[in-house]
């Protein structure tokens, strides 16, 4: 079972990004996704900077995938996605159908992130025929759904499609034209003053009773609780899942990965990640076919 690091969802200063990935180069992560997937205004890191990090990680024995923008509104954003898709050096993760279009036309194998809506084996079959080699299960789908999809894939004769499951981190739930971080500062997206760089792991949003609900991250809304199904790794492995994605909101994700790698090598369950999150609360409801915010089990 591979441990992968999802693309950094937050806006960090360039120095902090580089320092983080230098640590990642020595970590338990085997595959790393790089690139800006939330907002095109975040330009601390250019494509050249990401490529330099990618090569550094590769030299350290890591597999690297370049990830692309999820919500595309401007021509310039589309041009940037096209550029990443044409990089020729690293596999690209499509988070929007525009990237699927560019990659399939170029005839290169590609992968999809959790924001590409693939809810059935029949849908996967369509993209598989165009070069899809790995997909990330949409985060709201349960283990039951996953089992059915994988069984049906087998029945359809598709045996070479890898499955990755988002297993730890704040869940990406929605994308908007509006920037909620800017709105929180009384600003609009066009004059946002790059406010999101001030909240390195997003801004907690709670109900009026104080229950954690969401995390605000610019135009992206994440869960308020940290999703954690790391303890399901044996069940996933038995089903044929080949990779588990961890998504970090701070550098502690490196330690979570190390603990998880250790637990897997000891063939034990793993629930240690939960105790170190910066916001209260863990959840795993989606995996068990319930509301994502809920927590099942001990």
């Amino acid at each position: 079972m591979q441990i992968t690091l999802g693309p950094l969802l937050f806006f960090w200063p360039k120095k902090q990004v580089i320092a983080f990935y230098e640590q990642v180069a020595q970590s338990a992560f085997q595959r790393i996704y790089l690139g800006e997937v939330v907002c095109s205004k975040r330009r601390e890191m250019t494509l050249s900077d990401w490529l330099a990090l990618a090569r550094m990680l590769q030299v350290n024995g890591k597999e690297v995938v370049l990830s692309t923008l999820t919500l595309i509104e401007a021509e310039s954003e589309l041009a940037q996605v096209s550029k990443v898709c044409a990089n020729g050096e690293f596999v690209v993760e499509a988070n929007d159908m525009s990237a699927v279009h560019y990659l399939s036309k170029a005839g290169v194998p590609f992968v999809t992130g959790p924001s590409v809506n693939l809810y059935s084996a029949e849908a996967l079959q369509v993209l598989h025929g165009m070069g899809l080699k790995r997909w990330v299960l949409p985060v709201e789908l349960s283990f039951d759904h996953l089992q059915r999809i994988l069984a049906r894939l087998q029945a359809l004769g598709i045996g070479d499609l890898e499955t990755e499951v988002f297993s730890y981190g704040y869940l990406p739930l929605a994308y908007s034209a509006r920037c909620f971080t800017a709105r929180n500062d009384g600003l609009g997206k066009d004059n946002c003053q790059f406010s999101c760089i001030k909240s390195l792991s997003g801004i907690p949003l709670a109900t009026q009773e104080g229950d954690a609900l969401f995390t605000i991250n610019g135009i992206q809304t994440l869960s308020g609780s940290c999703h954690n199904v790391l303890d399901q790794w044996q069940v996933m492995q038995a089903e044929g899942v080949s990779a588990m994605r961890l998504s970090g909101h701070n550098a502690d994700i490196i330690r979570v990965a190390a603990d998880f790698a250790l637990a897997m090598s000891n063939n034990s369950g793993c629930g240690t990640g939960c105790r170190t999150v910066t916001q209260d609360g863990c959840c795993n409801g989606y995996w068990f076919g319930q509301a994502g915010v809920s927590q099942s089990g001990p």
Partner: protein
Amino acid sequence: MELVCPAGNLPSLRAAIDNGADAVYIGFRDGTNARHFAGLNFSDQRALKALDYVHNGHKRVRLFVAVNTYAQATNWQQWQRAVDICAGIGADALIAADLSVLDYASKHHPNLNLHLSVQASATNHASLSFYHEHFGIKRAVLPRVLSLKQVEQLARKSPVELEVFAFGSLCIMAEGRCILSSYVTGESPNTVGACSPAAAVRWQQTADGMETRLGGLLIDRFGPHEQAGYPTLCKGRFRVNGKVSHAIEAPTSLNTLDLIPQLHRAGVSAVKIEGRQRSPAYVAEVVSIWRAALDQYRKNPEGFTVNERWMSGLARMSEGSQTTLGAYSRPWQ
């Protein structure tokens, strides 16, 4: 521009047509469409009746059928069946989002017009090209995330006709990729065609005011002089950094009556009224106002002015009794 109107049932369908709709869109009575509510939508028989009313009136109106949720692994055949019925009854177009539904429809019913649902979340010409090249879609409904200028730019490059939302309840998130609802209730538009479903709602009058909850979580609390609204998840008042406000969005409706000239000049083919869950009275009022506005524009494009009675009529029909241009206007973003 074609005026495309919602019909959750036969009375609403008749209201839409009688008040000037150029096209109506309906769904079947199951989870294959994104407004899967109890008591709403059309059985196969009703759909045939609808088709009859739509095609045989004094003006030929088009009927679109929305099969626009994502086909689930538990019962993929249900979507296949919905497509077959849509083709069988002779609907003017199928509105779909799921790759496998579009693939099936384009291969098995090549004469069935395919419209890309807003639930496909296609916001740019590369996505539109993908669906056009692989499935032959004729038209796409755009998510409400583009500014007017971006719509104009997209219309210049789009390989297909564009249909834009013109009036109705506003989704603040990009349609097709919002799962806030399933995070709190277990149900989302993509999985079961529901958002903030009624089964998860609770209204409670307390000493602090009327409280609305979804999945047990407090969405809003209304004082004695405030009108309590339905707890759609993104429209509550929440606490961020100690301050309580509509941190995501206030209840409001989209109204682009002002933009009719710009939308038309941009080359937009159709304007869509949201609201299959609305009453026949709502549909009648909204459609008649839009019909009057579009007719006035056609008669005198250079001299188009928005009639204040239209605006106040639409405001009365709006969420929170207020309207907005939404993402079409940059400052809103």
